[in-house]
């Protein structure tokens, strides 16, 4: 046990020694890995920020039925009664045109516009929640509603939210794909670096094996070296990410303020940041594992 710990200590010291002996090469490697990893990590952070911003948006289908502007309140009441009888609807809400105008007035920047109007251009409206979210059923419902008297327009409101959802899903998939590709690249980079390191230590490995070193003993310092390189790369990725988000947030803050929003791009939460570093470290280790295994296979038992 004591000998085992000592050997690990020596392997870690050897790995740090290698890094110290080749500072600039090690730094460049960490930079390459870090920048590559910061791309999917950054994409993930952006998506997470967007998800927070759109969390309030309902994905439940909703239909807005607008009456003709010249429709009388009696027409609206008749339509309301008609709609209440429709079994395809879960519930409905009547928005009188006066209320709609008030809502519009309360909206940022719209007060002057409304004041400039000499009459209310908004119609009465009903907001409906159908029982079924099936697109075909919604379409059929909208068609029937359009045929009703006094109805000017029917709008399926949930479409944008569902489009956003689908878009976010696609973006997530693209980021996962990017992450997978770059992970593969990271393993390849580590494989190559470790291979070069092995070749410079070929004599030491050969002699060690000849005089009784186990394969595990030979592998160990390279594992640590690969993991160390991955760890450094992961930390660089986080630094790049934090730096970029801080820079972007200056612009985002201005933009969001103009919409009266306090929206900011948020950095990765600690758990996700830790996951990025662990993932990167693991990939570095794996690249080293592949590289050393390949080499040990090549040299055989000699």
């Amino acid at each position, binding site marked *: 046990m004591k000998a085992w710990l000592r050997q690990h200590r020596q392997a870690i010291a050897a790995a740090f020694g290698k890094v110290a002996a080749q500072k600039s090469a090690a730094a460049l490697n960490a930079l390459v890995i870090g920048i590559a990893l910061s791309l999917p990590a950054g994409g993930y952070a952006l998506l997470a920020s967007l998800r927070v911003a759109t969390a309030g948006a309902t994905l439940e289908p909703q239909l807005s039925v607008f009456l003709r502007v010249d429709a009388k309140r009696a027409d609206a009441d008749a339509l309301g009664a008609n709609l209440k009888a429709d079994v395809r609807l879960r519930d409905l809400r009547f928005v009188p045109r006066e209320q709609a105008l008030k809502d519009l007035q309360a909206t940022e920047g719209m007060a002057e516009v409304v004041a400039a109007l000499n009459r209310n251009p908004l119609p009465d409206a009903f907001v409906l929640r159908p029982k079924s979210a099936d697109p075909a059923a919604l379409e059929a419902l909208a068609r029937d509603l359009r045929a009703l008297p006094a109805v000017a327009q029917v709008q399926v409101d949930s479409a944008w939210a569902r489009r956003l959802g689908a878009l976010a899903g696609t973006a997530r998939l693209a980021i996962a794909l990017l992450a997978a590709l770059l992970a593969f690249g990271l393993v390849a980079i580590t494989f190559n670096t470790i291979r070069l390191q092995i070749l410079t230590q070929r004599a*030491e490995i050969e002699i060690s094996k000849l005089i009784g070193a186990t394969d595990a*003993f030979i592998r160990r310092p390279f594992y640590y070296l690969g993991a160390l390189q991955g760890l450094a790369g992961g930390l660089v990725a986080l630094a790049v990410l934090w730096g970029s988000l801080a820079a972007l947030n200056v612009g985002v803050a201005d933009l969001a303020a103009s919409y009266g929003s306090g929206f900011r791009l948020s950095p990765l939460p600690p758990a996700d940041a830790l996951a990025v570093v662990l993932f990167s470290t693991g990939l570095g280790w794996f690249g080293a594992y592949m590289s050393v295994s390949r080499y040990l296979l090549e040299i055989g038992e000699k």
Partner: protein
Amino acid sequence: MISFSAVAKRYPGGQEALKSVSFAIEQGEFAFITGHSGAGKSTLLKLIPAIERPSSGAVLVNGQNVGALKRAALPYLRRNLGLVFQDQKLLYDRTVFDNVMLPLAFGELGGREAERRVRAALEKVGLLAREKANPVQLSGGEQQRLAIARAVVNRPAVLIADEPTANLDAASAVEILEIFAAFNQVGVTVLISTHDEALIGRFAKRVLRLAKGSIVQ
């Protein structure tokens, strides 16, 4: 201690290095293996630490058939054998001291005890004063002695040396063999290959003579 029974070794490509070699070395024995270059001396010595494996026949070390050992078991076999290679295989990127430390790095010993062992091994071959030197600064004889120090630092029961005097002048060669003789005196089994008949004549020891892959005497 070491026994060969009907051992043959053919290399890929058909070259037959050894054909049906049988002999036994007892514990504490000192034996020379001699013969012209290409007679199979190096191959024979490589079969003992399983650097090569026999094509047929059995090589036993301490009753263990080393030709049948799994790869994972080889390090433990090799740690119990002190090997001195024909080309010495020293590491020129580190000091004399660190060269001898190498076999201890993967052993059980650590710290002060390991350092004490290294110095003891260097002292036995007369290199204690050169522990901080780089191997390239050493003479041919000193490099050979360094290789011996590394082989004995684990205190093996057997010392195996392939042409340890090949590139040395006569005086250095005798010095080297006297070091092996000293280890043999304290009970270490020694097996040395050489083509230097004059040297063999100076030491009255057992001689295994190889010719064309067979023992002729």
